[in-house]
């Protein structure tokens, strides 16, 4: 708490009448995030302190959050002014953390699809109000007992009457849709693109957060010569843009995932394996199409899960594991009592082949 500005420390001292067990959290973008427990109800809350000069848009985030009623959008408990510059709002604290943690834990294929459908539900409620989120990515989606909740409304914009897009957000180049790099604009399809990318990650798709991973050899040389932080950041964004604005790397992977039982975690992204693409967004023209597709993909998908580096499928009558071998192939085994035995009728093969045969 000592790291917080004095004004916020004074606010916390006042909140101590009703709250206890204050705990600062590093995840507060555009402000400070503090967790606490209500002394009376025992409810765990998150307190977001935000800063902004006086003006009409200062309280946009809590106002927008409060305006959306959806089981997949984080709800506001309270909001208060502290001064002309500082204010805060309270939301429930979600014990499961954010989607980054769920992705790191390796959800099963069905769980991943269910979470994606929940995100679609929250996003559709936002769109129904004429709003666009513009920043749907794992750190901005929290999980409460398995239910995803869209949480960060800092980039949300209202569509003007008759308009179909708004200026693109300058944040998160990795999640920026290809058309936004080209036009500087962002529409509802941009949110669908981002949901596609998050779904790809939930299903085990690799997406490096290190901008240098997207550099060419010449990019590395040029980057080493840049000293200014802003210029370095801009160069990183430009490198992602130069990758064909992701267009070369991302096509309709959603169908591919469905076809191959969704297991791809250990394979890095190839030109054809990511869902949030221009082609995919053409095929999935609105968010209802995305949800409809996900319900059908769910029906075609076996519930594979990663346990360490082993792919595991548990059904009512059998447990199958695909264990990695040297050379990148996998060995199919089936549980017989306490012991796993090799499935004699199926030879070793790539993950894709075995998932298709066994699942």
């Amino acid at each position, binding site marked *: 708490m000592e790291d917080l500005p004095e004004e916020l420390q004074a606010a916390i001292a006042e909140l101590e009448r009703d709250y206890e067990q204050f705990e600062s959290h590093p995840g507060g973008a555009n402000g400070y995030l503090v967790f606490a427990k209500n002394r009376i109800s025992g409810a765990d809350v998150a307190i977001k302190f935000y800063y902004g000069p006086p003006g009409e848009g200062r309280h946009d985030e809590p106002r927008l959050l409060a305006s959306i009623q959806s089981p997949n959008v984080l709800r506001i408990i309270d909001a208060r002014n502290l001064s002309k510059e500082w204010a805060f709002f309270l939301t429930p604290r979600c014990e499961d953390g954010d989607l980054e943690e769920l992705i790191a834990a390796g959800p099963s294929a069905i769980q991943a699809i*269910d979470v994606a*459908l929940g995100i*679609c539900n929250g996003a*559709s409620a936002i769109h129904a109000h004429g709003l666009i989120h513009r920043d749907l990515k794992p750190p901005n989606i929290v999980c409460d007992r398995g239910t995803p909740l869209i949480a960060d409304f800092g980039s949300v914009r209202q569509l003007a009457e008759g308009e179909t897009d708004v200026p693109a957000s300058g944040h998160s180049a990795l999640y920026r849709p290809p058309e936004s790099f080209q036009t500087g604009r962002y529409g509802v399809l941009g949110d669908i693109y981002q949901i596609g990318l998050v779904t790809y990650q939930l299903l085990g798709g690799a997406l490096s957060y290190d901008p240098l991973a997207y550099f060419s050899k010449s990019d590395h040389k040029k980057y080493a010569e840049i000293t200014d932080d802003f210029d370095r950041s801009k160069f990183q964004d430009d490198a992602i843009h130069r990758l064909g604005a992701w267009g070369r790397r991302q096509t309709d992977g959603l169908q591919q995932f469905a076809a191959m039982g969704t297991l791809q975690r250990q394979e890095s992204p190839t030109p054809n394996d990511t869902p949030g693409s221009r082609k995919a967004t053409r095929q999935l023209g*609105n*968010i209802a*199409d995305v949800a409809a597709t996900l*319900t*059908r993909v769910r*029906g075609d998908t076996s519930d594979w899960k990663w346990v360490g580096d082993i792919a595991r499928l548990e059904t009512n009558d059998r447990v199958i594991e695909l264990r990695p071998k040297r050379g990148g192939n996998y060995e199919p085994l089936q549980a017989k009592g306490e012991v796993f035995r090799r499935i004699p009728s199926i030879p070793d093969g790539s993950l894709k082949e075995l998932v298709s045969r066994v699942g």
Partner: protein
Amino acid sequence: MNVLGVEFESKRLNYVLLVCDGDDCKIAQFNRLELTDTRSRDSLRSFQNAVNVLFNATKPDIIGVKDKPESGAMRAGAAALKMEGILLAAAPCDADFVSGKRINACANGDGLKAYHQPAFKAALAAFQKQAG
């Protein structure tokens, strides 16, 4: 006026959205949802989410549902009845159950696959009843 036509076919929910102005109706959206497992809580919740997305994205003023009997030899299956329950519980507007006779009185919709025709006709019949 947005009119959502729905038909339950086995474990699938086929839908067609009509946007009607005066006597003129245009097909705006169509697709199909699927309920994968009728006795799994997660599966039912996911289907419920998809239905909510559908309502948020289509903002229907009325829903036309192709009627299926709840009893007798021609009764709907478990999946259809559960999907119908979820749809009605989440519906933001009234639902008009359209009989087979009213469905048959409607012409086919252009550019739709055969499995979307009953949903199209349910929407059209519901609109015609609403418009008087």
